[in-house]
């Protein structure tokens, strides 16, 4: 029960949320233009929300004087990536299999079935990877498999305990200038909470859990919008929910899912899969841009919050680099397309500073 343990858990939370982003981006950008509009909307909406969760966890960590780290080979996520709840995040194109994984990710009470726990979750999918998954930092810092909800509950309990122990002012000693504020966050999925004390820290972390849990228990929000979890279900069944429907069985009209109008990206692309020098160069470019995004986010979390705006610009360039890969078939394969590896690749030195690159 200590500040160090808290910092360890919160840093793991930041990395956990970060790791969900590349799988969503692969699914989103694998959609061919002018098809799957609903899928495109819900995927974009969810990935933006995951970015918010990462920012919220980072704000809490900064508030207690910690230092969130997302850059460098030791901090960047590697794929396939295993979360503490047993979900394995693969880099997949938009597909029924990707949707099944997203439904697990969006459910904070989910736990993968195992021989020890036959009651939980859906059956585990056969692995898509040729090597075993890389364990999440969060998996390493928890005592054993746990749900994401329980993982965050532990953090909140610990925040309360340490506050009782050392006093609120002593725990929340971070520099307020390190907080990511509402005007810097790119919108969608809510707004960041500036964390200065136990109440705001709890609000921030509850937001992370509630955006998942609240969605499961009450499918419609105050505006009448359907929660992400159920929008994924609509995609899985290609049926819209009607107001009268029982959750789990939408019976409305099709929502326009076309799994064929998708670039068939090779699962978990590796440089060795790409074969062609031009594709390898394109993948390196995507890796460098992804790494630059991470460096910029890292700088934003380390005292230069405004650098987050630069990260947004780099993400547009990452999108363009990913599309080059996704639109190209792999030579010699049976119709599979290239895709990003999301490997760490140190960007050119000038890019690491986070200053705006001008044409």
């Amino acid at each position, binding site marked *: 029960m200590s500040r160090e343990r808290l910092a360890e858990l919160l840093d793991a939370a930041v990395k956990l949320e970060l790791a969900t982003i590349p799988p969503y981006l692969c699914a989103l950008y694998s959609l061919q233009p002018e098809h799957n*509009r609903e899928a495109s909307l*819900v995927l*974009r909406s969810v990935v933006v929300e995951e970015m918010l969760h990462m920012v919220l966890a980072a704000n809490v960590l900064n508030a207690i004087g910690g230092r969130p780290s997302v850059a460098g080979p030791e901090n960047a996520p590697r794929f396939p990536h295993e979360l503490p709840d047993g979900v394995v995040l693969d880099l997949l194109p938009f597909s029924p299999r990707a949707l099944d994984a997203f439904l697990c990710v969006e459910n904070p009470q989910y736990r993968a079935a195992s021989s020890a726990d036959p009651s939980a979750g859906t059956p585990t999918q056969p692995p898509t990877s040729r090597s075993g998954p890389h364990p999440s930092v969060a998996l390493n810092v928890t005592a054993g498999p746990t749900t994401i909800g329980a993982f965050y509950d532990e953090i909140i309990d610990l925040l309360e305990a340490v506050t009782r122990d050392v006093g609120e002012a002593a725990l929340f000693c971070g520099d307020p200038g390190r907080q990511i504020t509402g005007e*810097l966050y*790119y919108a969608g999925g809510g707004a960041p909470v500036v964390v200065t004390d136990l109440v705001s820290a709890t609000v921030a972390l509850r937001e992370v859990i509630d955006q998942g849990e609240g969605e499961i228990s009450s499918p419609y929000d105050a505006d009448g919008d359907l929660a992400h979890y159920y929008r994924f279900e609509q995609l899985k069944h290609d049926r819209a929910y*009607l107001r009268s429907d029982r959750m789990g069985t939408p019976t409305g009209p099709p929502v326009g899912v076309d799994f064929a109008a998708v670039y068939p990206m090779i699962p978990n692309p590796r440089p060795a899969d790409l074969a062609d020098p031009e594709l390898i160069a394109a993948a390196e470019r995507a890796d460098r841009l992804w790494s630059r995004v991470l460096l910029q986010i890292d700088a934003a979390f380390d005292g230069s919050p405004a650098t987050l705006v630069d990260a947004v610009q780099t993400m547009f360039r990452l999108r363009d680099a990913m599309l080059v890969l996704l639109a190209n078939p792999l030579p010699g394969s049976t119709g599979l397309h290239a895709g990003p590896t999301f490997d760490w690749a140190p960007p050119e030195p000038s890019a690491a500073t986070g200053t705006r690159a*001008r*044409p």
Partner: protein
Amino acid sequence: MEPGVVMDSAADADVVVVGAGVAGSLVAKRLTRAGLHVLLLEAGPATAWSFDGYGAHLDAFYGADAKGPESPWAPAVGVPQPDTADLRGDDGYFVQAGPLKYASTYTRLQGGSTLHWLGVSLRMLPEDFRMRSRYGVGRDWPLQYSDLEPYYRQAEYEIGVAADVADQTYLGVEFAPGYEYPMQRVPPSWSDSVLAGAVDGMPVTLGEREYRLKVRSYPAARNSTPREGYRPVGAVDEGPDGQRLARDLGQRCAGNTACTPICPIQAKYNAGKTLAQAERTNLHVVPQAVASRILVDPLTGQVTGVQYQHYDDPSSPRHRVRTARARAYVLAAHAVENVKLMLMSQLADGSGLLGRTLMDHPSLYGWGLAPGPVGAFRGPLSTSGIDDLRGGAFRARHAAFRVDIGNDGWRANTGAPDTTVAEAVSAHGLYGPELRRHLSTVLPRQVRFSLNVEQLPSLDNRVSIDARAVDRLGNPRPVIHYAIDEYTLAGMAEARRVYQEIFRRAGIEDRTNPDEGSWFPAVTYHGDVLHYHGMGHFAGTHVMGSDPSASVVDVDQRCWEHRNLFLVGSGSFPTMGTSNPTLTMAALALRTSDRLVTELCA
């Protein structure tokens, strides 16, 4: 209440509003939120109001060979609209009676021309309201800048304008103490900063006076970083099942460089956003309902109803005629359509001014190649302008103008980048790496200025109707008489001289050549041929004033001859200055709404 059920005695609503563009939507939002029942008749389909419908317009744009301003926005067959592509021929919606062609267009769909506007949201200058007393030209407004200032503030929040007061305080424009725009200015483009380096502080002489130029960010109706407490309004999706799936799209401009003809993410304002914020229990929108006649009690002059043609199939002229009745009527159908409807109903022509004093901002393009890359084809179509010549003593002799600085290379004036590629291939025989090298050298250096020139009210410029020229519903098409007078031509010539000076100073190689650019109509001035394009800034057709014999509507936009009838929009402007009319039109619509609420809720 069912749409269009004919009721002979009972009113359908408190207010019938004709037209779901920016003015009509603002009126509908404000009245319904005050508890008044509004029946809103929209001539076009409501497709842009649902996300799927908007997406279909986007697909139409992607699929169009020519990406003109109207390419995503095809009208229903019974509701034709002017189209830039029709200008060159003589078979468009307008009957162009000459001597010059009126070069502007508008959109007859729910959302109106805000569906493809650029989003420039300038206030008019204080001196713009007093052209007659200040410079002895044009006419004065029946209200002053200070009267409208509170409504400008409201309009900037309703529309969602991104700007910094510090940039916009010039030429007498003042803001209420402590006021800030709802969002920070859209970041200036790289090209803006390159040009500012060359232009800021540069002197130019107009008349006997010297003016200093500055590249200035303009207020834009595009979502940017919000200020305290403001939430940017993203994409609209009104569906019958109540799901609004698109809401977290478009809350920030993403620099898609397609404000015109269609913002792909709806980060730019369109009138559907305002309508979506109306009090829905008090609002009944009837799209595909073309107002065709205003019914008036011959004894009192009071309007008793609006007849409209309702069609089910946008690809067919089949329709049924219905009547809508209310206590008050607001025509917000557009400066031309308002007049057309009044003329069709043979109303309000006592002053002889109905349809007269049609204005626009006849505009010139100047284009060139910068000495180095300026990042063309990135960001919103434009983010800055040169606004220092919007006002000044020279206005006694010639028109004022503003300069819009493009971020879109030569797209608007030549059809680049496609035409740049075509020219490189067919005229220079380039291909492969050489072609790529050529394009990456030329395209990022393309600079485009648009010089928007003030036009004063002239009785000869007018909208009329001719029973012989009708559309598929049997409604008359607008007949446009249009000329550009000496005052404006002299301003156009000065604008051209100024842009050439700026190009020289900035080292930009002038490549302006209307013969090689897109086709635009031309006018001759002192032996020079000036090719002009329209800005879509229609104004002046039902002018407001304080004298019933010299105006069509009063300061509240209430028709002098029919006291429960209001004509709102830029048609009410006595003069237009150099600002894009939308913000002023919005401010006036909000002011009129307040009058209506006061009267009808009493």
